[in-house]
């Protein structure tokens, strides 16, 4: 009883409708707020144009749920899209049946977080995959992203692409908002032992830029909605957790193994080649 008394409210405050009016108001304000934010958000982003989208919209194009993980459908024009910069920067086995392609923006914070995870994936799967890195600088929202991509390509011209890629991601916070990022890129070039004069020339030259542009063309043709975008034989992985990416790769490996077994069991009809030929074309 004593306990109840302690919680007994003030009867003077008992205005029967007041709390319900307040609750109704709060409800209305919340709904209105959600509506207004949703409307303002709908006005700007991607109505099909990938280059203007932000990193948070990655994996949610066409209203698809970010909860989709393992095996999504391959992107329709994956096989016919421009090939991107050739030869591509890759790790793993060149002839692996599973190609994991990451489209990333060096200035995108999520890409920096995903970077060590992709390294983990590469170590985990080794020669069972071919990990390809593609530049997808979102210039509209990341002012230094394009220059960073060119810096990575310029380093690649001295066979130090991966070293520069690593430095750019790990030092992202340092150069992202710099008014002049190039001196910082030159500092990284020195750190990894590049010929600095050649690096400067290559930064200004057309070859490195052309490679970035080719990757961009591929990303845009694939209609990727943001960065990072990770494709496993053309199937988007819509979660960036290491386990989800690994699961998507495992699923693709299993699918290929299954089709290979099926091809081996079936009578040889016209000598159709198994597994590899079907990759990315479905």
């Amino acid at each position: 009883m004593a306990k109840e008394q302690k919680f007994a409210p003030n009867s003077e405050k008992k205005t029967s409708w007041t709390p319900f009016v307040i609750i109704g108001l709060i409800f209305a304000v919340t709904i209105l707020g959600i509506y207004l934010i949703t409307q303002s958000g709908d006005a700007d982003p991607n109505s099909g144009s990938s280059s203007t989208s932000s990193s948070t919209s990655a994996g949610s194009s066409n209203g698809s749920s970010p909860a989709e993980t393992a095996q999504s459908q391959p992107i329709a024009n994956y096989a016919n899209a421009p090939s991107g910069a050739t030869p591509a920067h890759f790790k793993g086995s060149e002839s692996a049946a599973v190609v994991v392609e990451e489209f990333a923006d060096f200035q995108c914070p999520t890409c920096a977080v995903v970077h060590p995870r992709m390294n983990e994936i590469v170590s985990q799967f080794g020669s069972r995959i071919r990990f390809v890195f593609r530049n997808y600088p979102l210039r509209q929202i990341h002012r230094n992203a394009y220059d960073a991509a060119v810096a990575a390509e310029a380093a690649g011209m001295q066979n130090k692409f991966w070293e520069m890629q690593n430095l750019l991601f790990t030092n992202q916070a340092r150069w992202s908002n710099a008014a002049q990022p190039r001196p910082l890129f030159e500092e990284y070039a020195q750190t990894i032992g590049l010929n600095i004069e050649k690096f400067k020339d290559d930064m200004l030259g057309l070859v490195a830029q052309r490679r970035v542009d080719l990757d961009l063309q591929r990303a845009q043709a694939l209609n990727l909605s943001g960065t990072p975008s990770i494709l496993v034989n053309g199937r988007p992985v819509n979660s960036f957790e290491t386990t989800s990416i690994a699961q998507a790769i495992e699923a693709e490996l299993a699918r290929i193994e299954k089709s290979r077994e099926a091809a081996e069991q079936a009578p040889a009809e016209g000598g159709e080649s198994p597994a590899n030929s079907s990759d990315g074309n479905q």
Partner: protein
Amino acid sequence: MNNGITNQNEGWRLHAAFPVAACIAALVGLADSAYLTAQHYSGSEVPCSIISGCELVLTSTYAEIFGIPTALYGALAYFAAFSLSLLVFYGYKYLWGLFGLLTIGMFAFTVWLLYLQAFVIQAFCQFCLLSALTSTILFVIFLSSRLFSRS
């Protein structure tokens, strides 16, 4: 319905702080989760400037449960917590127990979400941490009220 209206007591002024504090914390949590819900549906960029990897959390598989944004569950829970604590303040004292059950559920959910961020997604989101803080505050308010009433 009359049983929500009880006698006045000198102890009330002190204890009124509990539902009032709960109202404030629930409103903060409601604003936070409603904002995240709106951003989820609009697909626009959430300003994740404080903690790197915030986007990672907001686009993870756990950003939705059964096809509904996790933030929306939070918004509903905070709205319920606000409504209950306000009603308690206005005399519907018996709803405090229901409020307590809600805060226990919210706190358990918070612990699970924190675990996911720390060990599964391996990234934190400042908006999610704010929500974790407000739901923890609600839980602490309820616990304190029980402890206080015993003394």
